[in-house]
């Protein structure tokens, strides 16, 4: 009976794991990068100095012309105040995908001339929408469910060896044995993390699985032809009042929320929201104090204290990890990376086990081609994004979009090359080619950083720049080692 259950679970684990795994590898990698989205934005804007002078509240008012300009364009701008993660003040707005930002000196309020970039929030958006809005969100939410199924079936398969094999890692054993050990080692110890992230992630996006309107209505709305609304240009219909001075409002907000507890200031057409910082604790309350944008008088203090909202806030706090210090943030990052290793190694094992029997079949070759595109291909595209950020001209119009296009062009190209080589029966060449190129791009990221960042020395301080470069270097070395072992 138990053997039958194990066999059945093995089938479920393999097929659900492989089909959702390629997508979940992408989700884990982008999620890990999104943990450091602010730090990555700093790497992607090398003109912004790593250290800045202390924050002066008077500097806030100097950002108001930029805020008003964005309001006139119909955006919802917000100012993020300096924090331990980011020493500068930024005026940001959401362009539908990423949060685009303009940095300001936190002491003087002067605008810092930095390149426009999609920034680290590019990975944040990719992580949960795949840049396709609600449809991507729904797909990712179902992938989260598939993750829970895969993990559950995996536990049943491996139940007997869960404790005895916990520390067993044999990298010098036969190839399949070694890959299995990598898979188990990247999975079992991180089960609490993976289950927590899958559960909280699916919970946060439960609206997409259980939508308030039926799926049929959503599809009908998608294909229905909408008459073009006859609305005037945004500039014509928006009359933006002269915004009030912000320092007194900040002081008033801090009396309610606490000193240093305001994280950002959001500007809407009918109110200015001084919102509690996400770093204040595991509950992502987004408690805010509102003022009138016309004369700055106090409007309301909003905090949702019910048990249901507390549950929601806790789930979001645990998943987004914005309250954590650097130690715990690194733990989230590395756990996410090992989650990606779990799915990467699982996909490789799936192919290895079936190569002898089905290696000549067209479906197997397509599956392997897709795996090459999804694993090394995606990492290659990620590094291309970093390279494009440094190599594209700073004066380029729609620069953030050009960075994003570079990412997708490289991903499509690598997926296509991988697929063609697999169909041609040269899968090993496909793996080697992509892993080799990945290694080259990753190792050369440090020289690129040193050459394209002003005021840099080889012995630069351990900042976000050095850490990002070192992570890329490590990725490059691992890629070359994999090429060597193939």
């Amino acid at each position, binding site marked *: 009976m138990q053997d039958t259950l194990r066999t059945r679970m093995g089938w479920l684990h393999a097929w659900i794991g492989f089909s959702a795994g390629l997508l979940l590898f992408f989700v884990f990698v982008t999620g890990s990068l999104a943990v450091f989205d602010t730090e990555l934005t700093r790497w992607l804007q090398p003109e912004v100095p790593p250290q800045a002078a202390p924050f002066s509240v008077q500097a806030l008012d100097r950002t108001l012309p930029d805020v008003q300009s964005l309001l006139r364009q119909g955006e919802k701008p917000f100012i993020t105040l300096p924090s331990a993660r980011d020493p500068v003040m930024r005026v940001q707005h959401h362009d539908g995908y990423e949060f685009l930002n303009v940095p300001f000196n936190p002491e003087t309020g002067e605008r810092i001339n930095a390149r426009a970039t999609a920034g680290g929030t590019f990975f944040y958006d990719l992580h949960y929408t795949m840049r396709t809005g609600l449809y991507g969100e729904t797909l990712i939410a179902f992938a989260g469910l598939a993750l829970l199924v895969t993990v559950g079936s995996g536990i049943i398969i491996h139940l007997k060896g869960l404790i005895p094999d916990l520390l*067993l890692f044999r990298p010098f054993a036969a190839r399949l044995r070694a890959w299995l050990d990598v898979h188990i*080692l990247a999975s079992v110890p991180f089960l*609490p*993390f993976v289950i927590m992230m899958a559960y909280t992630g699916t919970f946060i996006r439960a609206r997409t699985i259980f939508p308030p309107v039926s799926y049929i209505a959503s599809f009908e709305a998608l294909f229905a032809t909408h008459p073009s609304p006859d609305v005037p240009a945004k500039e014509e219909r928006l009359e933006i009042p002269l915004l009030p001075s912000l320092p007194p409002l900040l002081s008033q907000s801090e009396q309610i929320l606490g000193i240093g507890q305001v994280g950002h200031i959001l500007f809407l057409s009918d109110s200015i929201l001084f919102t509690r910082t996400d770093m204040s604790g595991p509950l992502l309350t987004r408690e805010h104090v509102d003022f009138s944008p016309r004369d700055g008088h106090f409007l309301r203090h909003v905090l949702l204290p019910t048990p249901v909202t507390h549950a929601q806030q806790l789930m979001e706090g645990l998943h987004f990890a914005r309250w954590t210090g650097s130690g*715990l943030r690194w733990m989230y990052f590395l*756990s996410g990376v090992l989650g990606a290793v779990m799915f990467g190694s699982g996909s490789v094992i799936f192919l290895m086990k079936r190569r002898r029997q089905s290696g000549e079949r067209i479906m197997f070759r397509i599956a392997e081609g897709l795996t090459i595109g999804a694993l090394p291909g995606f990492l290659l595209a990620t590094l291309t994004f970093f390279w494009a950020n440094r190599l594209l001209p700073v004066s380029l119009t729609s620069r953030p979009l050009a960075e994003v296009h570079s990412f997708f062009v490289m991903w499509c190209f690598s997926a296509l090359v991988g697929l063609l080589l697999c169909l041609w029966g040269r899968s090993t060449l496909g793996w080697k080619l992509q892993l080799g190129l990945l290694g080259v791009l990753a190792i050369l990221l440090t020289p690129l950083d040193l050459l394209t960042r002003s005021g840099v020395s080889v012995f630069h301080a351990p900042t976000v720049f050095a850490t990002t470069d070192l992570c890329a270097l490590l990725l490059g070395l691992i890629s070359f080692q994999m090429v060597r072992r193939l």
Partner: protein
Amino acid sequence: MIIVLCILLCSAGLVMQALCEPKMLRFAKLFQYKASYHVRIGRFMSLCLAFLCSLWAEPKTAIVVWAGSFSFSVIIVAIGWAVFSRYREAFRS
């Protein structure tokens, strides 16, 4: 800092766990070794101590810190044990 301490304590506990596990002993070619009573108790005590330390440092984040430290300790000890086994294999031959 507390994370480092937790990782150290968990790693110590997991090394003791490996010393109590026949499969791990066979892998490292430690055929004659027999774990003492202190080692058998110590593997649980280290993990409990790590949890108490994380609880003492910050109760709100205790579970997350302890679980994360345990996971990383598993990786560290597993890689360390693999290197140790390889070394013993080379030494014996």
